[in-house]
């Protein structure tokens, strides 16, 4: 029972961090709420028209200057190594000019999260989902909606069983996108039949 409590507490902590920042949104508007959410999760972002990034440091402290830029949408978001999950996307949903999204090494990003990225289908150009342990091939099929995607980083995804084939299929699915997939062992294994087995 204690072990299950520990798991439940951890999950509750993640859910609390990813809760909808309704209060902030009502007071400051959705862009500032999104910015505040990103900084609370120790991510970083850059506004449209600005050139410098706002980041939170290791201890979670950040500069409050971002409050000066009211109603400026976000252009680039870096949530690498944070605990963002499906519910956390509630906070980022209204961002129609989001061009870059970096989700490197996020432990809670899974297939359902990728399916929800369809809200950015017009604007998203760069997506980095390398090193995310929960992503599988079924979720990569959900990236079909991102028509504007130009750069996709799929390196070292442990959940994909046949990475070479998946990369080829993705290149066919997204013809204008450059796919980066390093960190896989593409050598032909002894049991060649295993590669063709479907999930």
């Amino acid at each position, binding site marked *: 029972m204690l*072990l299950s409590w520990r798991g439940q507490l951890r999950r509750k902590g993640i859910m609390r961090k990813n809760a909808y920042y309704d209060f902030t949104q009502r007071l400051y508007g959705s862009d500032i709420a999104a910015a505040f959410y990103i900084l609370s999760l120790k991510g970083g972002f850059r506004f449209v028209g600005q050139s410098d990034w706002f980041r939170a440091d290791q201890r979670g402290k950040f500069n409050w200057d971002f409050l000066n830029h009211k109603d400026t949408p976000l252009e680039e978001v870096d949530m690498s190594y944070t605990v963002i999950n499906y519910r956390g996307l509630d906070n980022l949903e209204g961002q129609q000019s989001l061009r870059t999204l970096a989700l490197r090494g996020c432990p809670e990003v899974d*297939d*359902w999260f990728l399916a*929800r990225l369809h809200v950015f289908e017009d604007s998203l150009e760069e997506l980095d989902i390398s090193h995310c342990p929960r992503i599988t091939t079924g979720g990569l099929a959900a990236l079909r909606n991102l028509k504007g995607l130009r750069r996709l980083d799929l390196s070292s995804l442990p959940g994909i069983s046949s990475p070479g084939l998946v990369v080829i299929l*993705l290149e066919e699915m997204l013809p204008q996108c450059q796919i980066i997939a390093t960190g896989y062992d593409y050598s032909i294994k002894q049991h060649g039949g295993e590669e063709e087995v*479907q*999930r």
Partner: protein
Amino acid sequence: MSAWRRLHVKVRRAHGLFTSRRVTEQYTWMYGPSTLGQNLSTGKPLRNDFFKELEAQLAAMRKKAADALPGSSWSPFDINPNLPPERADIVIIGGGVMGWSIAYWLKQKERVREGVKVIVVERDLTYSQASTVLSAGGIRQQFSLPENIHLSLASADFMRNINEHLGVLNEDPVDLQFNQSGYLFLASEEVAHIMEENYSTQRQVGAKVTLLSPTQLKEKFPWINTDGVALASYGLENEGWFDPWSLLNAFRRKAMSMGVIQCCGEVTDFKYTVSMMTSPGGDPVVYKRINSVKVQMPKGLEYQMVECAIVVNAAGAFSGKLAEMLGISSNPKDTIAGTPVPVEPRKRYIYVVHCPDGPGLDTPFLIDYSGMYFRREGLGGNYITGASPKEADEPDTSNLEVDHQFFEDSVWPRLAYRVPAFEKLKVTSAWAGFYDYNTFDQNGIIGDHPVINNMYFATGFSGHGLQQSPAAGRAVAELILDGNFKTLDMRGLGFRRIMAQEPILERNIL
């Protein structure tokens, strides 16, 4: 009996301690004369040396003494250990995904530990004819009935957090192999307006769907032939397909870890009490209350009468036959008591085809207005396809044999017309499964029966049972334990519409 015999042998052995030589002579005489004076038999010697196995013999004696005393579970009669218990609170008939979902939710909602004793009775644990494992495994929110959309949406939410719900400590996490590829419905000119109405209902309820014109469709999926297509409806999120066996096993594993008893057996009879009341109009109304369920063991005549408070009919394609055992058809046809449960099995075929030049990773679950459907299976150019037959050509449901001619006549032409790349394909395998077809209006029946007081139904989903099972299981558990639907209002899917003869038809094209 054998215990006494064993004791007797031990007594003889004990005597051997004192009269060893005489016993030896006796035994060699029994086995025939041997000149060497040795026992040449190759079987185990009947007389064992008492001291060699002293420890083991003493332990066995202690165990036998403990068994003989009251308070032990030893009994001289060999009872079949697979029999269900004699008493239970809730008996769920049918061990498919619906039955196990209800069992899980019942245990999840009970407020005290071991508050309800739940038994799931399934007659075939290999699931060779069960609709759950033979299904194509798709989930969609593109229905026209708001209740159906709510059920699918709630089930998708459940599957998104499936490890939170169905994760068992120390076991592997549940992997549904969910493919987030969405459904694509194609509509011709005549039905395009229905699709538009459905689209607005779906959006209102919260499904993430989008409409596509033929040009947008061609741009998105260049391999489709858009002749005859006036409008297309495409699911963006929470739609796709998954592995039904994983879901069934996840539910079963979690429910059994919470204390649900699984029983392999077939329900062949009910014992019920009948009470008669007069309606205000003066007609007599007969109410039945089930007292116990007769569960017959497979391959044998043994049975067990399980006394229960509530029976849940989740028998899928065979629910109608099960309800018949309660003698519904013996009543006059136009009364409430005489209305049969309108669920019957309907056979549907699924063919696995291989086409190397077929559509790629982004293939949705495409459903054509002609009734044909197909989806991608795996990464190697395999697809699963099928079609709904016309009412007049329903195949025979006595077996699960596949009719390959049906593929040649009805499926392949439509498939090749819609996707020209499929003109060159090869059928690698096929199977058939039953729909628990609701002949009344092809929508699920969730709720209690008006005349049979303690039987609840969760059946008749006509092909969408798997995708609605988590939410439907929760609805039935709420009805049983809380008395009313709490999270989703499924009163529209109850028996009332069947009694009042008001079908709520799904205005979708499949």
